[in-house]
C-alpha cells in the first residue's frame, strides 16, 4: 500500500510544546525513556533513604531511632519502591530509549499509550507517599503484603493496594507496547534472530509482565474486598485461606524476579561483547536460555513457601523445578565468560559494572540454589540469609547492570562522555561498600537472625554494625553517580558517533551521536 500522507506527522513540523508541557505530553520514545530513567533514579534515592533508616536502627541492638511500627513501614515501602519504582522503571526506560533504535523503528508502536504508561507512575508513587500521612501510617506488612496482616491495616493499606493496581496498569501497557514494537516495527532484514539480545530479553520480560501483573492485581483486589466488602478469600472462618494469598502472590512474585533479572541480562549481553570486541558467544543458546528461564519461572513459585505447610511431594516438585533454573542461568553465565575468553578486553566503567554483575549476580544465584533446597530452607527461611541472597541478585545484580547500561549508552543519549576516572571511582566504591553491606548478612542469617525485626540479640551485633557501615558508604557513593551524570550532561566532552570500538548494534552503527529526536523515519537498509 502507498505511504501514508501525513502533513503534520513527523520531523519538526508538528505540535511541540516547550518547557514542562513537552515532558507531560510527549509521545517521543526518547523523552519517555528519559522520564522513566530519572523517575527511577529519584525512587532509588527515596527507597535508599528508607534502607538507611533500617540500617541505622539495626546498627545497634535495642530500639534507638524509630519505633517498631515505623520500622515495618520502612521495610515495606523500601521493598515496594525499589521493586516497582526503581528497578522496573529503570529497565523500561532502557527499553524505551533503545529498542526502537536497535530494531530500526521510528518510535514505539503505541506512542501515546507509552506516555500514559509513564505518567501513571508518579501518581502511584504519590499514593504510596500519602499513605504515610494517613491514620496508622503506611502499611507495615512487608512488600509481599501477606494476608491476614493486610486485612487488619489502616487506610494506608488501601492506598497501597490501589498504587499496586496503577503500577500494574503501567507495566501491562508498557509491556504490550514493547511486545508490539518488537514484533511489528523491526526494519526489513532485522530478523528476530538478528535482534540485539537486549530486545529478546525484553520481549520475554514483557510476556512475563502481561501474564503475571493481572494476577497480582487479582490478589490485591481480593485483599481489598476482604477488608471492606465482607468477602473471606483469606479468612479460614469463611472457608478461605491466608495461604491462598501466598500462592497467588508468588505466582506473580517469582516471574517478577525474572522480570527484574532478564533485562539486566540483556544489558550485560550488550556491554560485554562491546568491550571484549567479540560477538556474543552462543547467541541462539542465550535466546533459548532466556525463554527457558521464563517458562520455568511459572512453576517454581512455592519455593517461597516451604515453611507454610505443603505436602512433601509438593516440596520436592518445587525444589527440583527451582534447581532446574540453574541450568539455563548457567548457560548464560558460561556464554558471557566465553564471550570474554580470548577477547581484546578493556575495562572502561560499563565493562567494570558488567563484570561486577557477572561475579556478584552469580554469587546471588548460588545462594538461591542453596535456598531452593527445601530441607535447608526450613532453617534459613525469613533469615538474613534470604535478605543477602535477593539483594545480591537485585540490589547488586540488577543495579550494577543498570549502571553498566547508563555509562554505556550515556554518550549516545546525551552526546557527551562521562568522566572515566570518576566512573571507575564510582564502580570501586560501590562494589566494595555493597559487599560490606550484604556479604556479612549471610553470616547473620546462617546464625539465625530473622529479617524484618528492628531489634536483635547481642550476638548479631558485629555483623550488623559492619553491614550498616557498608550501607551508608554505598548510599553516599551513589551521590557520586549523580554528580558524574549531571556534569557529563552539562560539560562532558563531545562523544563520537561510536565511542566503544566493539559496539555493533544499530544505535551505534546507523545513528549519529547524540541520537536525533526521531531515529528512523524510514527503515534503515540492513545487509
Amino acid at each position: 500500500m502507498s505511504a501514508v500522507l501525513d502533513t503534520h506527522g513527523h520531523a519538526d513540523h508538528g505540535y511541540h510544546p516547550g518547557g514542562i508541557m513537552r515532558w507531560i505530553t510527549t509521545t517521543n520514545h526518547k523523552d519517555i525513556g528519559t522520564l522513566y530513567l530519572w523517575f527511577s533514579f529519584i525512587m532509588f534515592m527515596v527507597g535508599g533513604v528508607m534502607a538507611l533508616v533500617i540500617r541505622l536502627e539495626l546498627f545497634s541492638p535495642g530500639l534507638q531511632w524509630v519505633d517498631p511500627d515505623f520500622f515495618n513501614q520502612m521495610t515495606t515501602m523500601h521493598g515496594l519502591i525499589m521493586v516497582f519504582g526503581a528497578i522496573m522503571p529503570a529497565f523500561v526506560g532502557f527499553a524505551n530509549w533503545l529498542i526502537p533504535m536497535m530494531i530500526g523503528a521510528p518510535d514505539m508502536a503505541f506512542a501515546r499509550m507509552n506516555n500514559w504508561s509513564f505518567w501513571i507512575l508518579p501518581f502511584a508513587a504519590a499514593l504510596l507517599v500519602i499513605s504515610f500521612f494517613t491514620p496508622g501510617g503506611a502499611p507495615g506488612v512487608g512488600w509481599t503484603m501477606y494476608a491476614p496482616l493486610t486485612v487488619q491495616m489502616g487506610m494506608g493499606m488501601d492506598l497501597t493496594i490501589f498504587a499496586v493496581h496503577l503500577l500494574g496498569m503501567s507495566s501491562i501497557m508498557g509491556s504490550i507496547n514493547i511486545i508490539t514494537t518488537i514484533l511489528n516495527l523491526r526494519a526489513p532484514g532485522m530478523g528476530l534472530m538478528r535482534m540485539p539480545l537486549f530486545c529478546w530479553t525484553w520481549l520475554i520480560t514483557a510476556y512475563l509482565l502481561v501474564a503475571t501483573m493481572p494476577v497480582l492485581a487479582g490478589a490485591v483486589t481480593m485483599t481489598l474486598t476482604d477488608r471492606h466488602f465482607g468477602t473471606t478469600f483469606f479468612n479460614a472462618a469463611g472457608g478461605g485461606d491466608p495461604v491462598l494469598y501466598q500462592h497467588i502472590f508468588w505466582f506473580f512474585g517469582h516471574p517478577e524476579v525474572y522480570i527484574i533479572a532478564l533485562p539486566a541480562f540483556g544489558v550485560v549481553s550488550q556491554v560485554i561483547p562491546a568491550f571484549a570486541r567479540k560477538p556474543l558467544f552462543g547467541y541462539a543458546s542465550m535466546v533459548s536460555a532466556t525463554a527457558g528461564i521464563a517458562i520455568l519461572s511459572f512453576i517454581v513459585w512455592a519455593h517461597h513457601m516451604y515453611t507454610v505447610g505443603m505436602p512433601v511431594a509438593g516440596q520436592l516438585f518445587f525444589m527440583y523445578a527451582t534447581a532446574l533454573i540453574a541450568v539455563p542461568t548457567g548457560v548464560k553465565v558460561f556464554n558471557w565468560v566465553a564471550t570474554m575468553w580470548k577477547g581484546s578486553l578493556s575495562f572502561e566503567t560499563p565493562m567494570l559494572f558488567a563484570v561486577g554483575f557477572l561475579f556478584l549476580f552469580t554469587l546471588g544465584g548460588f545462594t538461591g540454589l542453596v535456598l531452593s533446597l527445601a530441607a535447608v530452607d526450613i532453617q534459613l527461611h525469613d533469615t538474613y540469609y534470604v535478605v543477602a541472597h535477593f539483594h545480591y541478585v537485585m540490589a547488586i545484580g540488577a543495579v550494577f547492570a543498570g549502571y553498566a547500561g547508563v555509562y554505556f549508552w550515556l554518550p549516545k543519549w546525551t552526546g557527551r562522555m562521562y568522566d572515566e576516572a570518576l566512573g571507575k571511582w564510582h564502580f570501586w566504591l560501590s562494589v566494595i561498600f555493597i559487599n560490606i553491606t550484604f556479604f556479612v548478612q549471610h553470616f547473620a542469617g546462617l546464625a539465625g537472625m530473622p529479617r524484618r525485626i528492628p531489634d536483635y540479640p547481642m550476638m548479631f551485633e558485629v555483623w550488623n554494625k559492619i553491614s550498616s557501615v557498608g550501607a551508608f558508604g554505598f548510599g553516599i557513593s551513589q551521590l557520586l553517580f549523580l554528580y558524574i551524570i549531571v556534569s557529563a550532561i552539562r560539560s562532558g566532552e563531545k562523544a563520537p558517533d561510536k565511542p566503544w570500538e566493539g559496539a555493533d548494534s544499530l544505535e551505534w552503527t546507523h545513528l549519529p551521536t547524540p541520537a536525533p529526536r526521531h531515529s528512523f523515519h524510514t527503515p534503515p537498509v540492513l545487509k
Partner: protein
Amino acid sequence: MRQEHYYVPQPMPWPIMGSTALFLMILGGVFVMNGASAGWISLALGVVVLLYMLLRWFGDVIRESEGGKYGSWEDVSFRWGMSWFIFSEVMFFAGFFGALFWARAMSVPDLSSLLHQEMLWPGFKGLWPSAGPGFAEEFTPMGALGIPAINTLLLLSSGVTLTYAHWGLVNNQRGKLNLFLFLTIVLGAIFLGLQIYEYAHAYSALNLKLSTGVYGSTFFMLTGFHGFHVTLGAIMLTVILFRCLAGHFKSDHHFAFEAVAWYWHFVDVVWLLLFIVVYWL
C-alpha cells in the same frame, strides 16, 4: 508492498488527564471505603474527568482512522495490542478461578480434615458449596438451571449474531451489519438484566451474599467481574453501532469492529467456564 512510514502521533494531554482522573477516583474511593463520605466528591470528579478523557482520546483515534492515517502496518500493531490485552484479562480471571479451585480443592476440605478440627470447628463437613465453618446462617447456593442456563444461550447466540454482523460488514451489506449488531447488543443487555435479577434474587430469597463465606466471595467476584466485562463490551459494541450508523468502517478496514468482537468472544468463553465451574459442578 511495505508501507514507508509508520504513523507516530503528536504530543497530547489525554494520558496525564487520565492519570489525574484515576488518582482522584482512588483518593475518593479510599476515603469513602474508610467512612469519609466527602470522598464521593473526588470519586465523582475523577469519573467525569476519566469519561471526558476517554471521549477525547478515542475521538482522536477514530478521526485519525477515518482520516486514513492508519495503513496495514499500524493495523498489525493494533491486532497485537488487542491480543495481548485480552491475554492480560485472561490472566486476571485466572487469578480468581485459582482462588475458587483452591477453596474447593484445598481450604474447605482441609478445614474438616485437620487433626485439631474437632476442637476448632466441631461437626464441620467441608463439602462444597460451603461458606466456611464460621458462617452460621443458612443459604441456598445458586443452581445452574434456569437463569444461568438461559444466560448461556443468550451469550452464545450473541456470538453468532455478532459474526453475522461481521459478515455483513465484510460483504458491504450495511443493513445486515446494523441489524445483527443491534441484536447482539440487545442480547447482551438482556443477559445483564437477568444477571441483575439473579443477584437480587440471591440477596432476597437465597440469603446468598458477597459476605456468604468463600462461596459467596468467589461466586459474586467471578460473576461480578464477568458482568462488568459484559457491560464494558456492550458499551463498546454500542459505540461501534453508532460508528456503523455514521458510515464508518470499510469492508477491508475495520479493526475497531474486530477488536470489540474479539473482546466479546473472550467474555463469552469466560462465561462458559463460569457456567461450568461456578454454577453447574
